[in-house]
């Protein structure tokens, strides 16, 4: 099932759902014809769209709203915080091309502080599915909740079949005593590759797909911290994302761990097509594994597919 099919099914089953976009139609192309008046395109007006979504929610609607993540979470930030966050309205933000998925667009379109910004808003919940299968498994619970929600939309197709989603819980892919990789979103694909390489080098390796970053699965992080090394892997600035979340959880529970953060430190990434971006920034599965090992291997990096939409 695709994102658009799930949204169509959800909106047809629940009259209260309205679909909005600030002229970002890539994922909702067929919905105007299907939903009629319940499809609202406000044009390139992210702030007004978010404010209007709050107004619709005041009247009992559940707006699922779309824009490129950088504009949805940053341009409209104060509208999200003030109109949706303070009022605690069930507005569902679908942020398109987060993180490395903005490939050749450049820094204006790079949302690599979105997790940090959105989780800082009281009442807001924050989700980052690993791929399309994970996305459609998570969204029904996200949309059914009464709380505002931000989802990093990721429609990449992988062959991985995810477990069912339990609200607020991480997905434990593997457990290991030497290293545990914590990750979310697009980089899950590369983490799976790294997992295989590390195992073939003889390590006992764990891998956790975080899924929900707020609320976060604290027990999953505490369990991971029992490994000799915890790796936080994310296409996000080092500040405010998963590395920060892990630090907060460990501190709260008076725990400590050896943590290797793999993130973007105080800089935007080099714009190019996605496979080139991952290679250049050192985020292919092979490169991730070798950073953890501290040495080169003869393992092969599988081909990385181009993004399906350039956005």
């Amino acid at each position, binding site marked *: 099932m695709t994102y658009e099919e799930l949204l169509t099914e959800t909106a047809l089953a629940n009259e209260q759902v309205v679909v909005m976009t600030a*002229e*970002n*139609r*890539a994922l909702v*192309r067929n919905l105007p014809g299907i939903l009629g008046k319940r499809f609202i*395109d*406000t*044009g*390139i*007006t992210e*702030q*007004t769209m978010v404010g209007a979504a709050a107004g619709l929610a005041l009247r009992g609607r559940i707006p699922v709203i779309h824009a*490129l993540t*950088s*504009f949805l979470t940053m*341009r409209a930030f104060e509208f999200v915080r003030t109109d949706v966050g303070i009022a605690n309205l069930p507005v569902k933000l679908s942020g398109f091309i987060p993180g490395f998925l903005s490939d*050749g*667009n*450049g*820094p*204006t*379109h790079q949302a690599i502080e979105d997790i940090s910004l959105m989780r800082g808003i009281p009442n807001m919940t924050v989700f980052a599915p690993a791929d399309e299968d994970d996305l459609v498994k998570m969204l029904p619970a996200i949309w059914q909740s009464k709380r505002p929600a931000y989802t990093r939309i990721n429609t990449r197709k992988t062959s991985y079949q995810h477990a069912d989603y339990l609200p607020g819980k991480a997905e434990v892919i593997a457990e290991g005593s030497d290293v545990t990789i914590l990750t979310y979103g697009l980089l899950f694909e590369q983490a799976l590759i790294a997992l295989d390489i590390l195992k073939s080098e003889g390590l006992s390796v764990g891998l956790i797909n975080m899924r929900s970053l707020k609320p976060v699965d604290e027990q999953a992080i505490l369990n991971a911290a029992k490994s000799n090394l915890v790796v936080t892997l994310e296409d996000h600035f080092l500040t405010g994302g998963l590395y920060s979340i892990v630090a907060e959880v460990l501190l709260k529970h008076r725990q400590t761990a050896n943590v290797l953060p793999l993130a973007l430190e105080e800089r935007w990434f*080099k*714009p*190019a*097509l996605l496979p*080139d971006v991952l290679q*250049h920034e050192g985020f292919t599965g092979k490169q991730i594994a070798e950073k953890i090992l501290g040495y080169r291997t003869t393992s092969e990096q599988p081909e990385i597919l181009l993004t399906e*939409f*350039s*956005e």
Partner: protein
Amino acid sequence: MEKIALNVREHIIKMATDGGCFIGASLSATDLMVYLYTRFLNVNKDNLEDPDRDYLFLSKGHDVPALYGTLAELGIIEKSRLANHLSLNDHIYWHPNTHIPGIEFHSGSLGHLPSVAVGVAMDIKISGGNNKVVCILGDGELNEGTCWEAVLVANAYKLDNLIFVIDRNQFQANVRTEELIPLEPLKDKFEAFGAAVKRVDGHDFGQLEEAFSAYPFQPGKLNVVIADTVRGKGLPSIEERADRWFCNFSGQEIDQLLLELHGEAATTLTSETLIVR
């Protein structure tokens, strides 16, 4: 100018492969950029750091292939660099950035550069310069409220050294502007906000010359030029098609499009069109 514009269009078409580019918006803005750089703006490869140079801000941003092409034709960047589109070895990607000589500011998030241009124009007023400040906006971009805030502020500060040029190609990313968020009567809107407005055919160098030679249009007023253009101008198989916005063509299709540009053959395109914004 016609010859330069044709060369720029060739450069644009060649960037619409191996990852693609925003070809439609680039082709609509080509004649505007060529006119401004060759006739109106005091900008050349030797004065890029001169505080007395004129400024051009490209606000909609995704039309940057037209700017890359124009800068190459003017000798401000090497033509050979255009082949580096989307390469890790250069900075030529889908939106403008200041690693490219001649690009004054990065853009890509709509409705930002009208305000940045206001700030530059304000300083020129404070410092007493004669520089002109041009900001090119897309018509879809005018959805963003910050564009109108900038017009209000420019009016309040009597910025007659500032010119907003609207690339009025009638399209948002996916649909016609008038079918989504109508802008007309656009001239009246700007005039109601206090600007002095001229509306011209943005592909007619004579009309562009007539309009810009009247600068400043009225003392103490923001200048606005609404340039009526055609999205995809020069390629009939792309012109005014909502689904030909961001395109990633095959090498063979690029060859066909270059022939079409020179009026030699009609083109059949099969490549998927990608939708970005």
